[in-house]
């Protein structure tokens, strides 16, 4: 069988040279503002989106100090992998017809406020501290809602009543999520920038 496992290097195509490759023309150097860092089934992941994720991770680990170059590369690799996984889920969830509703979003925001004891103003401030706009945050929550529906759809064989604690249940769901993602990865056409 042809190996359809799709991980290819972005830019593999007949026009062999990327636009910016080759001997450079004279003049000042160009600073890259943005570009495509990966594509999943043709849907791009932009460098600027990856940068936001990396920035959030760096805020999370602020106490550990500035990362070394190797640590930063590892964080970038991890985050890109996670973004590819998320996109695989979103595309499969869309194929299955899963969407988030405004009511579900409102319930999710209410749950977050209750969980962390925040009012609306405090939540908005917290989101700003994370370097996100509230619209970005809402978009993240919408994606979480859809991803949860997607996982519930596939995790029907897991008996959620057979666990002594949330840890065991979460581990079972995480294992199922990983298994499903591996299946999606095996079929998807994924391009990653070299």
């Amino acid at each position, binding site marked *: 069988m042809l190996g359809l496992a799709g991980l290819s290097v972005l830019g593999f195509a007949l026009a062999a040279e990327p636009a910016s490759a080759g001997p450079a023309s004279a003049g000042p150097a160009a600073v*890259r503002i943005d*570009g*495509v860092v990966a594509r999943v089934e043709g849907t791009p992941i*932009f460098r600027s989106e990856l940068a936001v994720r990396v920035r959030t991770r760096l805020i999370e680990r602020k106490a550990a100090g500035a990362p070394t170059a190797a640590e930063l590369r590892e964080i970038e690799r991890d985050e890109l992998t996670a973004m590819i996984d998320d996109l695989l889920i979103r595309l499969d969830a869309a194929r299955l017809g899963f969407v988030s509703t405004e009511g579900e979003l409102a319930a999710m925001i209410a749950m977050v406020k209750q969980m962390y004891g925040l009012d609306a103003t405090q939540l908005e401030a917290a989101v700003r501290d994370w370097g996100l706009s509230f619209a970005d945050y809402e978009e993240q929550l919408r994606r979480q809602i859809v991803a949860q529906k997607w996982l519930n759809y596939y995790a029907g064989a897991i008996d959620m*009543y057979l666990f002594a604690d949330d840890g065991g249940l979460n581990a079972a769901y995480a294992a199922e999520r990983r298994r499903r993602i591996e299946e999606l990865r095996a079929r998807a056409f994924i391009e990653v920038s070299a």
Partner: protein
Amino acid sequence: MTARGAGLAAVVGAGLLACRAQLTPPVAPVVKTAEVRCPELPLAEDVATSADTVVGKPIARVCLLGASLETRATAERSLQVLAGQAVDVRRVREDLAILEGLGRYDEVAAYGMTTERGLLLLYTVRERPRISGFTLLGAEGFVELELLKPVAVNSPLDVRAVHGLTRALQDRCLAAGHVQCQVDHLISPTAAGAEVRVTVQAGPVSRIGALSFVGARPQALAGLRAAADLRPGGPLVRARLEEARARVLLWYAMAGRLAAKVTLVEGTAAADGAVPLRFTVEEGRVYTLAGLHVTGSAAGEEARLLKDVVTLRVGGAYGRAAVAEDVARIKVDHESRGQQVWVTPRAVRDDARATIELSFEVARR
């Protein structure tokens, strides 16, 4: 060069842009200031400098580099960011997404270039070659016209579409019972673009033969056959076999046999392609409830809830559906008294004894 003012594209004086201006009427203000020249590809990239250094700076001119005459006008009209505006990462990303969405480019990127006359915002693209020829071999019975539209001759080559076609053909071939089906594609550059060749090697058809369940109680057979849902005589599809095995396992779990083990082995194909399928089963014991508890905010009401509300009983078989039903009953009982609660079942499983100690953890919402 002369800028014609807001609402009109500038008339540009040199090279390909001049040709475009003659061929297509200017409709969008892509270039506001005509005094700064766009560079040519390839660019020298400054990898040491962060994009943050250009974010927020005013743009002297927007340049689209790498597009052919054929695609340039449409691409330029699509761009949102204009000269005179400040560099905004989100809007630049939206422009890149628009360029991607045109389906004509394999690669898009945005750069900032600081010149003596101001900042240039550069969009670079790499155009897709045209499909100059397409050959499909061995796909009879698996293909229809709709499937081939994305790879029509003379359309821009999208390698993802070729991959998608290959995958679709393979799925159809496997679903027809060709368990050894192989689909390959080859893309070769030509002077006129790219030649695409897709080859299907279907191989023989396999069919589902007789089903057997070794190790199962006779009274379970009807339920097991229904759960497996494999029709003898139908095409043998390996992906569906694993799904069938999972359904059989779930059937046992729903009946309280939580330690059941199920394997599925394909036998040797007969001359007509029929493959006997043997499920080997270790049913295991039915798990029973060794204890039932109510904890959390309703702990004080445990005796009443277990007697009057919960239907499960100590010594009875564990059943997932019954637990779900009792969770709902506890919630309804609280709601009838004006209380909203979360109910979370917690189980301690003893595999040696095949028992479950089950607690309903109740928390006020």
